[in-house]
């Protein structure tokens, strides 16, 4: 690697500190802290109800945490607590610099408008007013996520689940975000489609140098996508580390259980 002594690590893109969310007296997640650097892929794994999605929603500005800070290196304000921003500024920052890929494409797409319009919408939200240019960008992106560009004007419901997910990926990358959140992006897909989509995601993330936070309960997805892993149980982070390290040499009993319960064929 880089041999320059005293090399300064790049400033974090996202810095989470002491993040806690209570739903009344029920714990969502407690005291989560981590830094994410540009281009890094962080996987959050754990069983259902372990607080993965609560954590993701808190980090992505959808759910106000009970306490703690989520600081993001915004283009306009520098490294700021996103919940300290005014609502219009926060929404604008989310539109401009983030993407969010939902597990169910129905949550992330507008089912009433065509796939092409879905992909082009972020451009319009950022002030794009030239149809021809946006159309071309849409076609380029459909091509990039390996969809038939002749089907650009079909409604999302006429696409298969895997294709819908590809539309969602294109929609969340077209505006050049720096950070993309993914909530079980391959959750509802069969294994072969899942494998192809993962392959595509991996390629795009590497080519674009994206930072990604990916929530999954699938160890295979975590192994393929993530550089680093956070293992959650009962709302708390029980183990963190490099993906291969965590999966090959799990320390915490729960992680050991998780890794050993992956089905082998």
């Amino acid at each position, binding site marked *: 690697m880089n041999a320059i002594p005293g090399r300064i690590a790049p400033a974090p893109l996202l810095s989470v500190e002491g993040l806690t969310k209570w739903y009344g007296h029920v714990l969502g997640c407690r005291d989560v802290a981590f830094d994410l650097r540009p281009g890094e892929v962080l996987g959050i794994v754990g069983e259902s109800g372990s607080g993965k999605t609560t954590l993701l929603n808190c980090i992505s500005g959808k759910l106000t945490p009970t306490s703690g800070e989520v600081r993001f290196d915004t283009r306009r304000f520098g490294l700021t607590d996103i919940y300290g921003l005014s*609502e219009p500024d926060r*929404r604008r920052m989310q539109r401009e610099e983030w993407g969010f890929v939902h597990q169910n494409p129905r949550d992330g797409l507008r089912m009433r408008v065509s796939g*092409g319009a879905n992909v*082009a*919408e972020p451009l319009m*939200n950022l002030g*794009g007013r*030239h*149809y021809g240019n946006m159309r071309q960008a849409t076609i380029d992106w459909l091509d990039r996520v390996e969809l038939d560009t002749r089907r650009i004007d079909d409604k999302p419901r006429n696409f298969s689940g895997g294709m819908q997910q590809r539309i969602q990926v294109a929609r969340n990358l077209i505006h050049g975000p720096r950070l993309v959140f993914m909530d079980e992006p391959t959750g509802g897909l069969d294994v072969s489609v899942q494998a192809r989509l993962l392959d595509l995601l991996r390629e795009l993330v590497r080519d674009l140098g994206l930072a990604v936070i990916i929530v999954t309960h699938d160890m295979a997805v975590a192994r393929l996508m993530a550089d680093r892993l956070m293992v959650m149980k009962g709302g708390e982070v029980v183990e963190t580390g490099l993906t291969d390290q965590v999966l090959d040499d799990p320390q915490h009993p729960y992680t050991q259980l998780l890794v050993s319960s992956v089905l082998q064929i």
Partner: protein
Amino acid sequence: MSTPVPARANAPERYYNYAYLDEQTKRMIRRSILKALAIPGYQVPFGSREMPVPYGWGTGGIQLTAAIIGPDDVYKCIDQGADDTTNAVSIRRFFANVADVATTEDTGEATIIQTRHRIPEKPLKQGQVLVYQVPQPEPLRGLEARETETRAMHAYEEYGLQYVSLYENVSAYGRIAATAGYPVMVEERYLMSPSPIPKFDNPKMAQNEAVMLFGAGREKRIYAVPPFTRVRSLDFEDYPFETQTWEETCALCGAEDSYLDEVILDDAGDKMFVCSDSHHCAERREAGHVGPMAGHTLDQDAALKEPAQ
């Protein structure tokens, strides 16, 4: 109008309060109107009342009119541009009855014009009020079902979504094919649905001398465009806003520049195009303009005699 002169307002034998609504309701609506005028294009919520017509028949417009009308007003009501359709006649008779106002079909003479679907062809003047009946005040509703979200979008001026509908239009039809309820930006701040008027009428809203009030009874919203306000129809840089045009002229008055309705004449597919603004058309015919199908005058006596034989 030949309606019998009703008892004056506040006369003891009068059954309804003046202009149908009670005074407190009218006050509440006037307050909403003032707020709407102060923030052009902003949708002001108001306590919409039950009216003696169903939702969708102009309850919003009727409440606005009731709140601003006085005995000295001259009232005109049009539906699809015509003065003589059932809905327009009923509403006009309603206000002649409950507000003791003179009614007219003459656009120039009227002080309050209640309309649905059209802005009269004759340019409006200072001192006139145009009241629109609005079915859906929220231009973004077709794309975003959540009211909380559309309110935030208006508050933060996030109007990119509206362009998605235009994008869909261009990709499906090769042009912006939307014809009615075409969204506009008011004073470059609020996105507004101009009620289902044809986009032909959109340019008339810009810098108009008259006060324009919009009432949606079911949705309980009032909004307004004050006189001399900038109103811009949305479009793309490479697909500019265009109004409808016709190759035909009005069959009765020969007008080339008015909004035309297509009327089917028989089963053989014959049709005619006539001005949708009935008063505009009649005025032009009186002034001697003749369209291709207006060559003869009806012999009224002959027409009356014929059925008897």
